[in-house]
C-alpha cells in the first residue's frame, strides 16, 4: 500500500517542480483593441480541422453553456469541457496536470488565491498580452484587483461571492422577534442601510434558540473563508502587503477579537456548531433561522418550504460593512499548445455580452456592465430575483480586500482547519490564532 501510495504521489509529482517555465512562454499576440473581434477562429479553420482546447471546470451549468455557445459561433475552435466534479476539484485536477506540464490542459477554473501560487510557480501565463488596458475596465474594479498580482492580470474573473444573510422568517415569527429588513419587502437601499450588526445578529439568534429550540445562526460547511471579511471589518489583515509575512498581521488583535466572538457565539448556543458535513441543508430544511449566504445561493429561497428572505451582510458595531468578493476565475496554462485559441475563448467569456447572458439564470458575474445593470434592471425588481440586486450593491459598495500571497492555498487550508477548531471549541481562540499564524508562516518560507 505504501509503495502504491508513493507511486501515485510520484507519478502525480513527476515534473511538478517546474524547471523554469518562463512567463514569456505565452505566444506573442498583439493586444487587441477593445471590442475588436479576433480572427483567430477564422485562421484556425482556414488550416483545416478545428483546434480543440480543453477547459477543466466543475459541473456548474455556466461552463457547459459557454462551451456550447462558443463552439456554435467559433467553428475554428472547439472547446472541450472536462468536468472536474466538485467545486474545488478543478484546482486539484489542474495542479496535478500542471505538475506534469500537461500540454493538453489549456484552461482551468481556479479557486481564490490559487492563481497567485500557480503564477509564482510558472504554471499559468498572465493574460496581459491578450487584453488591453481598456478592455480590463470591463470588470468590476474589485474583481479586477483580485486577479491582478504584481502588475499582471492572471485570470478572467468569473463569479462573485459577496455574502448575505439568509432568513427563515417562520422561526422569527415563532420567536416573536423582528427580522432585519430583507429584499422580500423593501428595496436594496433600505436593506443595505438597515443591515444588522453582528452583535445584534448574535443577540437575536440567542433569543430564537431559546424560544424555538432551533439554532439562530449557522456558518455553513467549508466556508470558513467568510471569516476573512469579518476580520477585515475589525481592522485585520492576513498578510503584509507583499503577501510574504503573517507575523504581526494574522496574530494581531483583530483576529483574536474575531476568534473570541466566533467561539462565544457558538458556545452560547446562538449559533449551531456545525457538523463538518453540513452545507446549507440545515437552513433549507427549516432548522436554522439565519445563515451566512454566498451570492451563488441567491435563489435559495425558491428551494425552501418556509417563508424565506435575504438581508444584507451584517457588520460589526461602528465599522464599515465589508463583504467578500472573490470567487472563481479562468486561467491559461503555461504549458498549453494552443494559447492563442485558449486566449480567444477567455476573451469571449470576458468581453462578449453573449457570454454574460448566461448569468441571467446564474449568479452574479464579474463584469461591471451586467453587475451595474442589475441595480436598475426591472427584471430584478421582484423577490427573489432582487436578491441578486442586493448582491450587486454589496459587490460594488462593500468589497473587502482580497488577501494576496503566493501561499494562499496553503494558508486557506490551514485557515479552514483552525477556524473549524475555534468554532467547535477544540482550540481556544488564542491557540487557534497562534497555530494559524505559525503554520501560515511556515508555508511562506519557500517564497521568501
Amino acid at each position: 500500500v505504501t509503495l502504491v501510495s508513493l507511486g501515485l504521489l510520484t507519478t502525480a509529482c513527476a515534473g511538478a517542480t517546474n524547471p523554469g517555465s518562463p512567463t514569456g512562454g505565452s505566444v506573442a499576440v498583439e493586444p487587441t483593441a477593445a471590442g475588436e473581434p479576433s480572427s483567430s477562429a477564422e485562421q484556425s479553420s482556414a488550416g483545416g480541422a478545428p483546434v480543440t482546447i480543453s477547459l477543466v471546470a466543475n459541473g456548474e451549468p455556466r461552463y457547459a453553456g459557454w462551451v456550447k455557445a462558443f463552439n456554435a459561433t467559433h467553428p475554428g475552435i472547439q472547446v472541450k469541457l472536462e468536468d472536474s466534479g466538485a467545486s474545488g476539484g478543478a484546482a486539484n485536477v489542474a495542479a496535478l496536470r500542471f505538475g506534469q506540464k500537461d500540454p493538453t490542459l489549456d484552461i482551468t477554473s481556479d479557486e481564490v488565491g490559487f492563481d497567485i501560487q500557480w503564477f509564482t510557480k510558472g504554471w499559468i501565463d498572465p493574460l496581459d498580452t491578450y487584453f488591453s488596458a481598456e478592455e480590463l475596465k470591463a470588470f468590476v474594479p474589485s474583481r479586477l484587483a483580485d486577479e491582478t498580482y504584481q502588475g499582471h492580470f492572471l485570470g478572467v474573473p468569473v463569479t462573485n461571492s459577496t455574502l448575505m444573510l439568509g432568513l427563515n422568517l417562520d422561526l422569527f415569527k415563532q420567536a416573536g422577534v423582528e427580522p432585519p429588513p430583507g429584499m422580500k419587502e423593501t428595496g436594496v437601499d433600505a436593506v443595505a442601510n438597515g443591515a444588522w450588526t453582528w452583535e445584534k445578529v448574535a443577540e437575536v439568534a440567542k433569543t430564537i434558540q431559546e424560544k424555538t429550540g432551533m439554532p439562530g445562526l449557522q456558518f455553513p460547511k467549508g466556508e470558513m473563508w467568510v471569516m476573512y471579511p469579518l476580520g477585515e471589518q475589525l481592522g485585520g489583515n492576513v498578510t503584509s502587503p507583499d503577501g510574504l509575512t503573517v507575523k504581526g498581521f494574522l496574530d494581531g488583535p483583530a483576529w483574536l477579537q474575531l476568534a473570541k466572538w466566533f467561539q462565544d457565539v457558538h458556545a452560547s448556543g446562538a449559533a449551531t456548531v456545525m457538523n463538518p458535513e453540513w452545507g446549507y441543508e440545515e437552513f433549507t430544511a427549516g432548522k436554522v433561522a439565519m445563515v451566512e449566504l454566498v451570492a451563488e445561493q441567491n435563489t435559495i429561497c425558491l428551494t425552501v418550504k418556509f417563508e424565506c428572505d435575504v438581508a444584507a451582510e451584517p457588520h460589526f458595531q461602528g465599522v464599515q460593512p465589508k463583504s467578500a468578493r472573490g470567487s472563481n476565475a479562468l486561467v491559461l496554462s503555461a504549458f498549453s499548445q494552443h494559447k492563442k485559441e485558449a486566449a480567444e475563448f477567455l476573451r469571449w467569456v470576458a468581453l462578449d455580452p453573449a457570454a454574460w447572458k448566461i448569468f441571467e439564470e446564474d449568479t452574479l458575474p464579474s463584469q461591471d456592465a451586467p453587475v451595474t445593470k442589475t441595480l436598475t434592471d426591472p427584471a430584478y425588481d421582484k423577490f427573489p430575483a432582487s436578491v441578486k440586486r442586493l448582491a450587486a450593491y454589496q459587490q460594488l459598495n462593500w468589497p473587502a480586500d482580497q488577501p494576496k500571497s503566493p501561499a494562499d492555498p496553503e494558508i486557506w487550508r490551514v485557515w479552514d482547519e483552525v477556524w473549524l477548531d475555534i468554532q467547535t471549541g477544540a482550540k481556544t481562540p488564542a491557540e487557534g490564532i497562534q497555530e494559524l499564524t505559525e503554520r501560515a508562516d511556515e508555508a511562506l518560507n519557500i517564497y521568501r
Partner: protein
Amino acid sequence: MATRRLRDKRRPAVRYHEGSPSLRHWWLPYALLSPAIFLIVVFGLSAIVGGFVVSLQGERFSSGHAETLFVGLRNYVAVIGSSIFAKSVLATAEYNLVANPLLVGSALAIGIALTRAGRLATFFQSTLLLSVCLSWTVTLLIWRSILSEGGLANGILAALNLPTQPFYTSASQALWVTVAISAWAGIGFWSLVFLGALRAINPEVIEAAALDGASAIQRFRYVVLPMMRRTLLLASVVLTASNATVFVPAQLLTLGGPDNSTHFIMYEASQKLFYDGRPGEAVALVGLLMIVVFGLVFIQFRIVGSDDA
C-alpha cells in the same frame, strides 16, 4: 512434535528440480517470475527511486518563473520541522496502535466463533461480506450519517436518556471513531481469512493436544496460534501498511480535525501536494512513512515470522 510430524505427513516436501522434465531448467522459475518482477520494478522500485529524486528537489521563485533546484534533505528537514508533523505522527501512531490489534483480535474472535456457528455459519459469513463489498467512501457516508448530531446513534442515546455525543466533531472522540469505523470496515474480510486458516488446521492436532491434557486456552495458545502464524503475519503486515497510510476518514469525515486529532501523515501529504503544491515535501513525508512501515514490517517478520513464514 506431533504437530510437525502431522504437517510433514500432510504436505510432503516437493522437490521441483527432480520433477517433470519441463521444470528442470534453472531459468524457468525466473521466467515465470519475470512478469511480476517487471511490474514490481516499473511500479514499485522506479516509483521509489523517482520519489526519492523528487524529494530532493525544491524550487526557487521569481515573478512567474520557477527554477528547480537540488535541495538535498531540505524537504525532509522542512516536514520534520513543521509544527504539524509531530501531531500527524502522533495521530497516525495512535490510530495504528489501536486499530491493528483491535481488528486482528476482533476478526480472530469472530473467526473462532464462526467455526462453532453450525448451520448459521453461512448466514453470518454472508453478513460479514457486506462490509467487504462497500467502498471506503460509502462506508464513511453511512457512518457519518449514523454518528451525526441528529443521527441514529444519538437518537438511540437520547431515547435511553443518555447524553448525546459529538463523535467525530470532538477532539477527544474523533480518532477513536475513525478507528472503530476502520475496524468495522475490515472485520468482515479478516474474519473470513482467519476462518479459512482455522479450518485448515487439522482437528486431529487439537484433539491430540486435548488428549495430552491441554486446556482450551493452552490449545489456543500452543496449537492454534502457532499454526496460524502465517495468516497472522499476513494480517499484521497488510494492516500495518494500510493503516499507516490511512487517509480516507480524514478526508471525508473529519478534515483532519478536530484539533488535528485525525491529521494523519498521508492526509498531510495529500494536502501538501494538492493545496500547497509542494511535491518534494509530500513525497518526503511519504518516504519517511515508508521507512517506518518497512521497519515495522521487518520487526513483525522477526517476531511473528520464521523461515517458512
